[in-house]
């Protein structure tokens, strides 16, 4: 596999995590334009942990995820009382505030004669954990996919659990869920917390894959793409957003020859998909048909 394909596949894996993060909130009926903030928090925190404090990657990733989760829960507790459009705007405002804060965030220490750490608009250089530990880009790609597989497995397990059912209840009719004894605000904050953790872990991988990060990486377009992946892939099952990521990145890479117009094409793709499949390719209805088909096939085999 050449370096180009490793980079594209690594990107698909890492961006899938922000897509899953946005997907979880979409399942709960909330559109967040701010998941890039937790992705960025995860990237900076884990970068600081490994490059400046000498922590191993796993600890840094966990710290990035946990700080991302805490921030998401805090923002969620403040904003999830407001619904729909207002929540979306609040998340966007928070994410932009975080990005602008990163422009003035400076925290550097001297390691081996050079300054390492976040340096405001100049970004954060020297996140070299994978080189210092002799991990190749291909090996790191497998680490990314290992983490992604764990997150997807966890989410699919959650979707079959009581918690997953509650998230879907809230997403499909939060008034009815309330009337059935569900503390909607509490569970929405919990969903925001889990989504923040997933985004934070994704950001940690991103920082270590690119070894350099800057505030501009975590702009609103990253959040919009994260949302679009869920809406393209579908809200019926956790692997829906991964299909969305694969379609989108595959599509964008395939139209490199129209450099400069790619985002227009991407916008068009999202618009067309939303017209024909408003809840994505693998929406609840299609996923239900697939499940029913599989069940019938299994039934036919056993009989």
């Amino acid at each position: 596999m050449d370096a180009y394909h490793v980079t594209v596949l690594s990107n698909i894996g890492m961006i899938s995590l922000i897509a899953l993060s946005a997907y979880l909130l979409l399942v709960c009926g909330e559109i967040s334009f701010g998941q890039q903030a937790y992705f960025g928090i995860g990237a900076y925190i884990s970068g600081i942990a490994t490059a400046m404090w000498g922590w191993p990657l796993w600890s840094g990733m966990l710290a990035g995820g946990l700080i991302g989760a805490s921030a998401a829960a805090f923002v969620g507790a403040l904003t999830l009382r407001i619904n729909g459009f207002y929540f979306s705007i609040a998340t966007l405002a928070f994410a932009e505030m975080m990005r602008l804060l990163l422009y003035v965030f400076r925290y550097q220490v001297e390691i081996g004669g050079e300054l390492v750490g976040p340096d405001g608009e100049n970004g954060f250089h020297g996140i070299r954990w994978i080189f210092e530990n002799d991990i190749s880009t291909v090996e790191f790609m497998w680490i990314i996919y290992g983490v992604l597989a764990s997150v997807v497995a966890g989410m699919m397990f959650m979707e079959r659990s009581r918690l997953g059912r509650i998230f879907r209840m809230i997403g499909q009719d939060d008034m009815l869920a309330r009337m059935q004894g569900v503390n909607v605000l509490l569970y929405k904050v919990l969903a925001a917390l889990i989504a923040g953790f997933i985004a934070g872990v994704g950001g940690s991988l991103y920082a270590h894959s690119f070894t350099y990060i800057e505030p501009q990486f975590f702009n609103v377009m990253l959040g919009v793409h994260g949302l679009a992946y869920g809406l393209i892939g579908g809200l019926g099952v956790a692997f829906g957003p991964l299909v969305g990521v694969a379609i989108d990145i595959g599509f964008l890479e395939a139209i490199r020859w129209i450099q400069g117009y790619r985002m227009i094409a991407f916008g068009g793709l999202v618009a067309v998909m939303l017209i024909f499949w408003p809840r994505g390719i693998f929406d609840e209805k299609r996923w239900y048909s697939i499940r029913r088909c599989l069940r019938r096939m299994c039934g036919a085999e056993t009989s």
Partner: protein
Amino acid sequence: MLKLREVCMRFGKTDAIRLLNLEVGDGEVVGLIGPNGSGKTTLVNLISGVYPPTSGSIRFDGREISRLAAHKIARLGIARTFQNIRVYPGMTVRENLQAALTGSPSLSGRDEMDSALRQVQLADRAEHLAGELPLPERRRLELARVLVCHPRLVILDEPAGGMTPAETEDLAQLIKNKLAPGRACLIIEHKMNLITATCRRLCVLHRGVKLADGGTGRVLSDRRVIDCYIGTAAGKC
């Protein structure tokens, strides 16, 4: 069991409910009728905690619930259906019942869900998506949901809406034989045959005020009720 004392609900300058007193006893089935806009659904929303009353007291089993969050009220054992049917459209009929049990203290299992679905004639629809059911079947799903939750107070908001006379008759039998025994029921309905078949007591609301309350036969023959709701002289009230 349920006691409302001088309950008022004001939306802006409009009094939707004015100084309403109402009691529903244990095991009692009470009908609630009134013209459109008389405050029936507002009353259900107040009891179930959709919004708190402007003033007054709502007590359930002696406990004040007027300022309690809706999910906490539901957990006390108050279940309701909706005038505009609400189901989880992306879940199957069975998953809708499982969802109803999620926040309920009821321990109903699969057998009880099957039994509830049989009682509302939805057993063969258990694995269908609720969003694809026709309207009368969605209404029956709402009733099955109530059956599995074993609430202590059931509030049915126009349960026969959109039903044929034969379906309404079946619904009356279901309410009498399965839903009502052992629990209090408050039924909002415009179809008088359902009210007379199920309710021994009837309360009439008009412009947010209680117009009459008593035995169903007596209330239905009350001159003011006939004039305001059943008869043709609504303008005189």
